[in-house]
């Protein structure tokens, strides 16, 4: 019963967050100087009548709360507006961009998380030994590299060996699904590697410090006194406790990855959400930006909700 209440509270909080974000999203673009009409009506000799007619056509003559209600109603029906740039519905553009981004970013994030966990755990369990120094040192080094520098180095070093632009070979015409898949995977290698290198270090360092803190707890001493072997102490006692802060941290950083992949996507010309937003900014494509921000908010909220639910599974203290 109580645990259901916990779930209900979390879901409610997520819904409120999204609603607030939606409202802010509406206000933000109304606060900006000028509107769609001033943009279009900037032609010479534009009469006042023409501006009025345009405002009526776009519904901008209505009171602001009515505009807000219309905005909410249309959004509920999946209408996020039309992109200025390519005259396509924003929703379709976003869905396509996300579909391109998710395989690349998800692969990179999962690999980075796994690598970070393993590296951090090994470093913590061999604290101050040569393995720790090597692993921690290289993690700090990787963490210090800016994404764009690392990405460009990848392009320079490997562009002959591996495809360094786009997500598919435009000239590949093949009926064999295997060849298509192979082509996709080859295109993914460089951007994913860049992403993993920039992300794993943070995970590794967090895991290491969280692990070290956990290893200093009293219950680890109890386990040692019980005669539990070292390996089992780390895997069964320490890791599960050390995971709790890692889950929260990585959910937060995962959210920023959606937009943070911008650099990687621009460098490798990956037609994903990051590059779409980047181009929307360049083109002042407001509906596209508005939709993109909304999508990112929803994704981040969902990821945090997932982290809360994971906590629920991992930590009995939350369950009570």
């Amino acid at each position, binding site marked *: *019963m*109580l645990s*259901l*209440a916990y779930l*209900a*509270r979390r879901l*409610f909080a997520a819904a409120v967050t999204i609603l607030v974000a939606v409202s802010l999203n509406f206000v933000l673009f109304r606060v900006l100087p000028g509107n769609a009409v001033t943009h279009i009506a900037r032609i010479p000799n534009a009469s006042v009548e023409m501006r009025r007619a345009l405002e009526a056509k776009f519904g901008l003559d209505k009171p602001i709360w009515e505009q807000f209600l219309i905005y909410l109603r249309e959004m509920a029906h999946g209408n996020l507006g039309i992109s200025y740039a390519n005259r396509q519905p924003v929703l379709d553009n976003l869905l396509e961009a996300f579909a391109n981004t998710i395989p690349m970013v998800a692969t990179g994030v999962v690999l980075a998380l796994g690598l970070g966990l393993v590296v951090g755990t090994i470093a913590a369990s061999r604290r101050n030994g040569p393995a720790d120094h090597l692993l921690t040192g290289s993690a700090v080094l990787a963490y210090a590299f800016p994404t764009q520098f690392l990405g460009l180095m990848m392009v320079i070093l490997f562009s002959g060996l591996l495809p360094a632009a786009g997500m598919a070979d435009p000239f590949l015409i093949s009926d064999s699904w295997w060849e298509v898949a192979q082509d996709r995977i080859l295109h993914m290698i460089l951007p994913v590697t860049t992403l993993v290198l920039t992300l794993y270090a943070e995970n590794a360092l967090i895991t290491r410090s969280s692990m070290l803190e956990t290893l200093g*707890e*009293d*219950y680890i*001493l*109890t*386990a*040692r*006194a*019980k*005669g*539990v*072997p070292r390996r*089992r102490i780390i895997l*069964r*006692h320490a890791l*599960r*406790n050390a995971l709790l802060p890692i889950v929260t941290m990585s959910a937060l950083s995962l959210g920023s990855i959606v937009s943070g992949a911008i650099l990687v996507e621009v460098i490798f010309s990956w037609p994903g959400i990051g590059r779409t937003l980047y181009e929307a900014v360049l083109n002042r494509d407001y509906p596209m930006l508005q939709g993109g921000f909304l999508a990112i908010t929803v994704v981040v909220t969902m990821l945090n909700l997932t982290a809360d639910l994971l906590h629920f599974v*991992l*930590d*009995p*203290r939350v369950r*009570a």
Partner: protein
Amino acid sequence: MTAEQSSALPREPLLRVENLNVTYGSHDPASRARIQVLHDVSFDLMPGERLGLIGESGSGKTTIASACMGLLAPSAEVSGRIFLEGRDILEKGEASIAPHRWKDIAMVFQGAMNAFNPVRSIGWQIAEAMEVQDMPRGRFGVQRVGELLELVGIPAAQAASYAHEFSGGMRQRAMIAMALACSPKVLLADEPTTALDVMVQRQVLDLLVDLSRKLELGVILVTHDLGVVAETCTRAVVMLQGRNVESGTTKELFHRPRHAYTAQLLKASPGYEARAREGAGDEPPVAAASRAPVLAVEGLIVSYPQRPSLRQILTGSRPEPRPVVNALDLSVAPGEIVALVGRSGCGKTSTLQSVMRMQPASGGRILFEGQDITALQGRALRRVRRDIQMIYQDPYESLDSRFRVVDTVMEPLHIHRIGHNRAERMALVREALERVGLTPVDDFLRRFPHELSGGQRQRVAIAAGVVLAPKLILADEPTSMLDVSIRSGILDLLVGLCRDGGMSVLMITHDLSIAASYADRIAVMHEGRIIEEGPALRVALEPQAEHTRDLLAAIPRVDPGPVVIAH
């Protein structure tokens, strides 16, 4: 000493520690970084015997326990011998102790709060101890976990619970159950009851004595509390700075201490009987009734909101807040020390926080010098806070580790804009440090908390309150984290501040004997109410309420009973 014991107990000792030396730091004997924490410690433990290991923090008592378990830090250098049933288990270092861990020697740790893994069930952790020692697992294992829990008085069905679902006392019992999982012969209990309130302490100690008799278990009880030793142990060893300064049967040790340190420890242990004999507490030192009280609490209610259940969320109703303090009346006269005594969870800390206005009151009034401060805000509240200062339980936590003593004591002056320049403030800081007995002041001003002992830290914390010349000091268990011999110094200081400084003290404690030894008046609190109130010694010697009597009965007495052999 050994001859005496072997004649009294003809059996072979279960555990014999011989010339145990432990050194930390540099391997170079001449180096200053080399610290010897144990010097030639020797003692025996018989089957079914309970041996008390008495000492203050830093005396090396926990190091002895860790050495027996092979849990010393890798940098420790160990010499000497530890015989378990005649075999030297220290011969090859940790490698030769490891096979005996938990199977022959098990340990109950201090502060069972953190000794259990929070994300694994209690039953899982007990079963793990058996599993790694190749004891039966599966259905038989589950059954044994249940039996062990029943043995310490916990229903077997609770095995699936987690540590946070247990109270402090239950956790310590579960810890004992886990220690017994592999039927050890020796049980090391390191301050097993320090964090528990007196009534729970009594239950856990009774359990330990009972188990030791029933299972022929040799128990080593590490503690700083002489009362605990007097009530549970047959023999005791007194440790001072890593040396075994005295050992013998508890009765001999307590009635005819041979070493000056033992005598000093015995003197430092609170005994309000002595105060009663001196007749000090009969009349209140100040004419309390004649003057208006500094603090008057009238019908105070403090309640905490409960988390709503799903149904309550859906129906939009709020759960009833749970009152922790329920219609409490209390007053403190000028120059008076009032002790608020009660078990943990009775609402005494909530009361104190409410007086400090850190926890809003849900009902009732708090009058400070006749002014209703229950709803004061902003500047007026800050003015009143200057006159009410708080001293916390743990001086290791309450001082900022990056603040020098002078910064800690001067900070309140800055906050309340007292003194026109640094020199004026400095003079006040010096005066405050002198009043709390940190002299010569110049030695202490520039020190960081880690360069101070526990007692000195608490004095700094008190100085930071006293520097504002408050009218009322609130003290939350001011001595429970400190060693016995330091306690009396801190409590004497508080008494002195009241007698000479015109301050009043409202102190909370779970230890009625401390309250009876130092306070003018005692208010006994139970489930959010005051159930008994009166002059300190009257409450302690002629308790009216049943709960007060229970609290008194639970305090371990230092007197181990009459000596059988005549002088």
